């Protein structure tokens, strides 16, 4: 089963005629993803290696019937691109763009809050269900279809984690990066809920980072609602403190945001902590085999 994206997902790429958009639209298609169209205002009527290009998402929706949009639009125009996808009825939106102004995202968040939209990102590597559909910029070859769901805040750490998991002989059901910006479309909880319900997913890996309180909230949720084994690594144990957050930012967080705070919360929720990122694959393998008697 996997979650959210499947073999049947039909994807349009906003910003498909840009360098990055073109490269990844084709890379996704090569992976097997159904890339049915692209959007670049002013380039309607042309095509990218056979993928038809439209002027507006509205038109792309009418002509190609997609259910996912993958966005590579430059930061100044990216929020508008997300809202164009929303306004055209697309419910799953993956925004790769890094560097969108925060206040633009405040507006986007306000709009999608009530529309039942799944916005992955911005500033994320995308989402992949191995051997079925890759919607993002991740290297497809490191993923292997299997039973671990991965939720990551960072892109390269998602790759690192998936790679370690693949190398110990396990695989992934669905993997995604929720995005590294202050305001992103989804939190861990959203994905935990779906992985918990997905029959294919047998264990969940969380790849967190210092800052914010998303991991603490995830821990609360796990404690109350998740029955499957959960593993977590939080990057930044060695990061220098106090270099980024302003005072007002700090107070919203209270004492949350440090690696210790996150690990404490996660431990209390029964999550298996992997402190050293060199041992993610091994630890998952060993724990699932020895503690949960998985036949791997």
């Amino acid at each position: 089963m996997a979650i959210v994206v499947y073999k049947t997902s039909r994807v349009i790429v906003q910003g498909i005629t840009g360098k990055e958009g073109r490269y990844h639209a084709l890379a996704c298609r090569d992976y097997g993803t159904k890339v049915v169209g692209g959007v670049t205002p002013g380039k309607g009527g042309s095509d990218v290696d056979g993928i038809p290009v439209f002027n507006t998402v509205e038109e792309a929706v009418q002509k190609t019937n997609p259910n996912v949009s993958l966005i590579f639009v430059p930061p100044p125009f990216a929020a508008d691109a997300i809202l164009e996808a929303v306004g055209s009825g697309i419910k799953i939106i993956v925004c790769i763009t890094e560097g969108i102004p925060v206040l633009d995202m405040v507006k986007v968040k306000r709009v999608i809050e009530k529309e039942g939209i799944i916005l992955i990102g911005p500033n994320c590597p995308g989402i992949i269900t191995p051997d079925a559909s890759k919607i993002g910029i991740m290297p497809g070859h490191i993923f292997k279809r299997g039973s671990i769901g991965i939720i990551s805040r960072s892109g390269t750490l998602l790759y690192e984690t998936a790679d370690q998991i693949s190398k110990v002989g396990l695989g992934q059901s669905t993997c995604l990066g929720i995005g590294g910006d202050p305001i992103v479309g989804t939190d861990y909880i959203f994905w935990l809920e779906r992985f918990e319900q997905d029959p294919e997913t047998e264990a969940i890996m969380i790849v967190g980072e210092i800052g914010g309180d998303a991991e603490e909230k995830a821990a609360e949720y796990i404690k109350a609602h998740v029955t499957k084994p959960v593993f977590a690594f939080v990057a930044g144990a060695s990061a220098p403190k106090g270099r980024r957050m302003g005072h007002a930012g700090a107070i919203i967080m209270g004492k949350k945001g440090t690696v210790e705070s996150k690990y404490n919360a996660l431990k209390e929720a029964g999550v298996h902590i992997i402190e050293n990122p060199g041992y993610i694959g091994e630890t998952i393998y060993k724990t699932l085999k020895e503690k949960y008697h998985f036949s791997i």
Partner: protein
Amino acid sequence: MKLHEYQAKELMSQYEVPIPEGRVAYFPYDAWMVAMELGFPVVLKAQVLTGGRGKAGGVKIAKTADEARDIAQELFGKTLVTAQTGPQGVKVRKLLVEKVSSIKRELYFSITIDRTIGKPVVIASKRGGMSIEEVSELYPEDIIKIPIDPAVGFLPYQIRRLKYDLDLVEQEKEISRIVSNLYKLFMDKDCSLLEMNPLVVTDTNHLVALDAKIEIDDNAIFRRKEIAKMRDLTEYDPDELEARFAGLNFIKLDGDIGCMVNGAGLAMATMDVIKFAGGNPANFLDVGGEATPDTIAKGFEIITRDPKVKAIFINIFGGIVRCDKVANGILQALKTVEVKVPIVVRLTGMNKEEGMEMLKNSGLAFSVAQDIKEAAHMITQITKPKKEENQTTKETNKKEK
């Protein structure tokens, strides 16, 4: 981007927020002149982009113009060390000289973005003057948090709440104007933080922003030309600045293992894995998605500038870029930059084998690792040859599974 206090006050003043009379001084004589003009006493405030300058001796009061000049002389060029700056501290290059205000009460007021709810939030307190972290710890009941719905903006009832909770019934019109205008400023200029601590009630019962802090969303500066002009490059660490010019994200640390990684998350994890292996990273360096010969060369250049660096750890996960291209980039870079310390490379992703072969066959002093824990082990072997490795090595054999 952080603004200086005087810049923040200038912006607030444009939005009709009352600030004390004052001028910036660049030389001791300026301080004398400004003090003469404003009258006495005056306060001299070091303009540095860090909090806690008061405790570090960066704020002084002068009762005469001569005293102002003397204090200024002492402050200019002085290094202030605060909790935020780290041991290296920051140099004082400008002073804000202001007329001293008579204070009846000190309040706290700020607007920022609450990531969790994805909205701007006003934070205010009757207890101004002390750090808001301290207030939130000691008097959590005295902190007012008002989220702002961007669909409707700051609303009259929210101003009423501030009026009553901050005991500003007499200053109703003033607080209403100040708050509305500050919210406008926050949105107009893409702020990420806007703070007055303290906002004071003077003894004539008027409100004045005694201290002001503004931070601007770096991602939005492209559309705020008037803000872009306010950037003060003298306040940046020269290495960090140079890295930024080259599109790299570099932060200096105090260990001896130089790091070069692609991706901020992986860069942090690389530092973590080094720590767990008993080593000490000399820096955080994210070379970004594409590791070209130029960016790699610049990385080597900046890393090796630090004499403490005993070895360099290159950790590249070839997501988009192929490993043979990265290996080629490293070799090209080493032709332009001389690197005298050992280099441990961990390359993975597309065309990994070819890339590793290229490095091994280059004739240069590379150690090539299969994965990050092996790489961390190798590099700490180099930097701490005498010392026993910690528990992580015990597990190394299991990696073949």
